């Protein structure tokens, strides 16, 4: 199978049918072997029934239903886990992405890119609650991860299946897939996509997610830079502790010897404490190495999955 299209749906009953016909209209003329995966993320409306009615007519449409609402990342992860195609394409279920853009994504993958990211260059959303926070978040993600992508929040993305299946997807990590894969050496390109205003249903996002995004960004950055070499990372953490320990111990011993002042228990104590911290941090680093070696998500392994190993870089057309 060539292509799996993964679409998470949460209370999108008005959008299921137009979305399905939009995707079929865009993909059918290409003459490739494809499947569509609708993931019903615990909808409380008729989304699942609508999707099932379509699936009864078309065996290329598969519907996965969650027992409860698990969130968009989990829905994407489920879709990616069950995808059978060599290319996985993800998109939103709210019709704001245009299925007509799909062929362009496939073209880029066939040109040799591992990841194609959509950029909603004329975004049709509210300025204050959606566009401005998103612009700040994108700028920040770009700064922190060093991968300048203009639109991390766009769900319309295409991946080489073997690359995306090796990436751990949990919490709200879907926003950082480009950054993570890019750091692992995948070739990434950003292309402009159409974006439409919402026709049916209501938006499930608000300002409240900013805090979570910031925290996840910090975690991602830390994990990505630290995962492959925990000992080094912990050594860096331990450096100030070593310095403090040596200085404090020196003062507490040198003082009584040189100036015949009394021996200071608190200062010697500080020295011993930070000395102990150093030892614990270094041992923690060793433990980290052990965890990483026995784990099954390895960024260094991931880089072998990309066909040729080029320098990580982001490009915009």
């Amino acid at each position: 199978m060539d292509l799996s299209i993964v679409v998470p749906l949460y209370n999108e009953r008005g959008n299921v049918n137009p979305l399905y016909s939009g995707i079929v209209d865009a993909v059918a003329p290409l003459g490739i072997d494809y499947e569509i995966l609708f993931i019903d993320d615990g909808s409380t409306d008729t989304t699942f029934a609508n999707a099932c009615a379509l699936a009864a007519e078309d065996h290329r449409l598969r519907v996965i239903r969650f027992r409860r609402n698990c969130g968009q990342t989990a829905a994407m992860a489920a879709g990616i886990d069950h995808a059978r195609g060599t290319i996985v394409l993800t998109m939103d279920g709210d019709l704001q992405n245009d299925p007509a853009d799909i062929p362009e994504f496939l073209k880029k993958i066939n040109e040799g890119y591992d990841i194609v990211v959509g950029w909603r260059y004329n975004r049709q959303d509210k300025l204050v609650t959606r566009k401005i926070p998103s612009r700040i978040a994108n700028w920040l993600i770009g700064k922190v991860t060093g991968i300048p992508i203009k639109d991390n929040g766009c769900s319309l993305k295409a991946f080489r299946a073997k690359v995306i299946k090796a990436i751990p997807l949990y919490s709200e990590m879907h926003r950082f897939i480009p950054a993570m894969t890019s750091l692992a050496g995948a070739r990434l390109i950003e292309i402009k996509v159409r974006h439409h205003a919402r026709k049916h249903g209501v938006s499930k996002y608000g300002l409240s997610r900013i805090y979570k995004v910031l925290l996840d960004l910090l975690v991602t950055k830390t994990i990505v830079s630290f995962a492959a070499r925990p000992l080094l990372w912990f050594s860096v953490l331990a450096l100030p502790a070593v310095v403090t320990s040596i200085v404090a111990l020196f003062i507490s011993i040198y003082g009584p010897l040189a100036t015949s002042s009394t021996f200071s228990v608190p200062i010697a104590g500080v020295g011993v404490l930070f000395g102990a911290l150093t030892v614990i941090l270094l041992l923690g680093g060793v433990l980290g190495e052990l965890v990483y070696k026995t784990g099954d998500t390895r960024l260094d392994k991931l880089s072998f999955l990309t066909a040729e190993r080029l320098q990580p870089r982001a490009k915009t057309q």
Partner: protein
Amino acid sequence: MTADRARALPRSREVGIDIAVIIPVSERCDDVHALYDAYRKALQSAGYSYEFTYVLDGYFPEVLEALEQLQARGEPLRVIKLARGFGEATALTAGFQNSSGDTILTLPAYYQVEPSEISKLLSAARDHDMAIGRRFPRTDSRLNRLQTRLFNWGLNTITGSSFHDLGCSARAFKRQITEDIPLYGDQHRFLPVLASRQGYRIKEIDVAQSPKDKFTRFYRPGVYPRRLLDALTVFFLVKFTKKPLRFFGLIGTATFAIGGFILLYMVAQRVFFDMALADRPALLLSSLLVVLGVQIFALGLLGELVIFTHAKDIKEYTIEEIIN
């Protein structure tokens, strides 16, 4: 888990079993024959096909003998004997794995609920994924009721659920749940909490308390802290499985900040007011807090690393069905 002897019935007799009745046997165990007969009568009158599985969590020769007598009588029951006491959750898991039937009914090996009430549970388990018993109205001593209420109140507060009697072992549920939620240690009590987190529909059913459940219970003092630790474990499983740094980071940063603040304050006093730093025990306290803060944060990082490298094993979603 080592079931050193599983006295199984021939496989052919399992076909068409509706209900797998699992009865874990540990310290508290009442008259085996009488209780078995009472349970069997209740199931028979409700018209289910059933199979009993007794799991002996340790060495209980009298119980084993009584069960062997029942087997000799030709009763449909199997006995699994664990090599030693592994805890009730492990005993239950052994029972789940060595039984058949799409609906599982767990029952206490002692008089806790009226046996005639279990048909209420079974009929509720048809419309829901899990039906759990709640002993109501309670007829036992005030002290027991207070213990139950405190335990459930504490657990509901930390996990954000609303159950009234997690100490009641009479529960009926779909086998699917046991496959989705691995249990270990003493976690069997919290199965409803974990299952409802996974999106299963759970219903509490009032069941009459057995008149023989009346005596006042005191547990050994070691039991209470263990319960508390179990509750904390469940809290972590429910809230922070995938985000250890969110939790550890918060505590670590707070500890570090308090220590750092005291330290800065004392350094300022040393620099501007010429108060000696060397003879102040508070210096030790603040350094201790700083060190502790860094350590907690480092633990959180290690936790994130564990999650990151093993994320493929931990699914964040539960699938109800797949079409096509």
